[in-house]
């Protein structure tokens, strides 16, 4: 059975991605598996209160390790390394861990086979029960770790497996800001993207860039204009941009301090009496229609 994957993105940070994603998760109840793919700065757990029920370490990428006993100090490893990750320290060739990309070139060329490639800890994956009656897959990036794209891919894969096992047809994915590797990793295979933006010149600029990325992937998209009443002129510009690019205009949500109030109570806005909550319920209805039509 096909799992319909919806990714919530924004380009610019702080526009309300996570608040929207968690609201949709609450509205979906037990019908959707949830994935927090903003592994760099995960926040969804603050609203959905997962139980951190199952966890496992995830190793993404590799790291070169030099066996000093075997090393004959020829220096070939340092010569081939394009990342300047190998340097001579007190007469020993030493790997500067943060700089090692794990390409394995040094290990291949070492005449003494003194270099081994080890798996590198990328972070911890959690599979949790959440209060909406469903399952959330989330992760914590190891401090200073690279490769969040691979951890994102792992979170999505785990969420797919959960969906398959429980016979769920919907996956809600909270994405990262920006347009780089974690975002691209959360996009591949997605069926629909919800863009959350706000009426400001920087947000519009970032929306245009994230939209170009989504277009490359040929994924249909809809947009929520959050805090639309903060600048009506920019809101009008965003609406023009949406219609020009055939992006569904899903909702205009007014600025509302209840978003923050709800967050402090570890709740989503749809669990409060508010116009924003009602508007997001309507977005959920629209989304359900899309899923029924596609699956």
């Amino acid at each position: 059975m096909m799992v319909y994957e919806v990714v919530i993105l924004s380009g610019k940070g702080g526009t309300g991605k996570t608040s929207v994603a968690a609201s949709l998760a609450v509205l979906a109840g037990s019908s959707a598996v949830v994935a927090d793919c903003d592994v760099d700065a995960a926040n969804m757990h603050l609203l959905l209160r997962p139980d951190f029920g199952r966890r496992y370490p995830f190793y993404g990428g590799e790291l070169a390790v030099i066996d000093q006993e075997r090393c004959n100090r020829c220096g070939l490893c340092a010569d081939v390394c394009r990342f300047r990750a190998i340097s001579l320290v007190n007469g020993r060739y030493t790997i500067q861990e943060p700089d090692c990309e794990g390409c394995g070139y040094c290990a291949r060329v070492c005449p003494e086979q003194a270099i081994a490639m080890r798996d590198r800890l990328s972070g911890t994956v959690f599979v949790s029960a959440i209060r909406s009656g469903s399952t959330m897959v989330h992760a914590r990036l190891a401090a200073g770790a690279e490769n969040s794209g691979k951890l994102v891919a792992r979170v999505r894969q785990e969420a797919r497996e959960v969906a398959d096992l429980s016979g769920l047809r919907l996956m809600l994915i909270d994405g990262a800001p920006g347009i780089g590797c974690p975002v691209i990793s959360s996009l591949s295979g997605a069926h629909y993207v919800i863009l959350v933006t706000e009426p400001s010149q920087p947000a519009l600029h970032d929306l245009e860039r994230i939209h170009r990325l989504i277009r490359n992937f040929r994924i249909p998209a809809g947009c929520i204009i959050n805090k639309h009443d903060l600048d009506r002129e920019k809101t009008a510009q965003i609406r023009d941009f949406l219609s020009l690019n055939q992006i569904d205009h899903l909702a205009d949500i007014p600025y509302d301090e209840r978003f923050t109030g709800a967050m402090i109570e570890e709740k989503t806005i749809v669990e409060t009496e508010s116009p924003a909550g009602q508007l997001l319920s309507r977005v959920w209805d629209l989304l359900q229609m899309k899923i029924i039509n596609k699956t």
Partner: protein
Amino acid sequence: MKIAIASGKGGTGKTLLSTNLAAWLALSQPVLLVDLDVEEPNDSIFINGKEESVTSFYTMVPEWKPRQCTLCGLCSEVCKFHAVIQLGDRIAVFDDLCHSCYACSELCPTGALPMRKFKSGEVRSLSSGNLRFVESRLEVGREQPVPLIRYTHELVDSRYSDVVIQIFDCPPGTSCPVVAAVGRADLVILVTEPTPFGLNDLKLAVDTMRILGKRCGVVINRQGVGNDSVIEYCKQERLPVIAGISFNRDIAGYYARGELAFDKIGTVAEALRQIMEFALTPVNDGI
């Protein structure tokens, strides 16, 4: 002095602070502003100036030459990033996945994978009075911001080492792009907001900055919208809270229209003054 403006959580006010701080300082002295949020650079919306140069940034990727290729499969075997894959009787190169390690190219026994330039971004330099401004912009579709960020640091060091005060607007998050962006900063200003999301991501950012051994100070933006948990956390961790900017719809309005705010809103100007006072205070106790 290199000052990095970072945050963990996105949308807390990095761009607001970076651009206003640079423009304000430029009223009285030379200053350099560098936009390192290469995935979504926004500073140029607020900073005008005369364009002095545009430099393309290239990474190197292999290019398959079928006539030289014996289809031995070594390239596909050595590539840890699945950027070079043998598909039947051809070799497919996925430029965006390539980390430019050169292994496939240099280990190929017949030289069938020479490296070629692949445009990944652009660095623009602008100038206006005392202000020098450098913006780095990643091409849409490129996965890796870090090489461009490192390149920008090198370029800044070679061109602008004479500018004493340098401000770096960093990307959000806590992983490799931020680590690369804070680079050799003498001071990292962490901008946050007084909400549970702001606090959670501030903690992550502080953990990263401690691993890097950076001196940090916190600026709390949109004061009044949330609770006191950020202040309590800073007290507990002995993190200096340098300044607070009260929530004000007018600030949001100027920001929305791409205008600077320090010359119109007193609390913004005051925060900038406090940041510089902190930056210029001799260090006796880092974090």
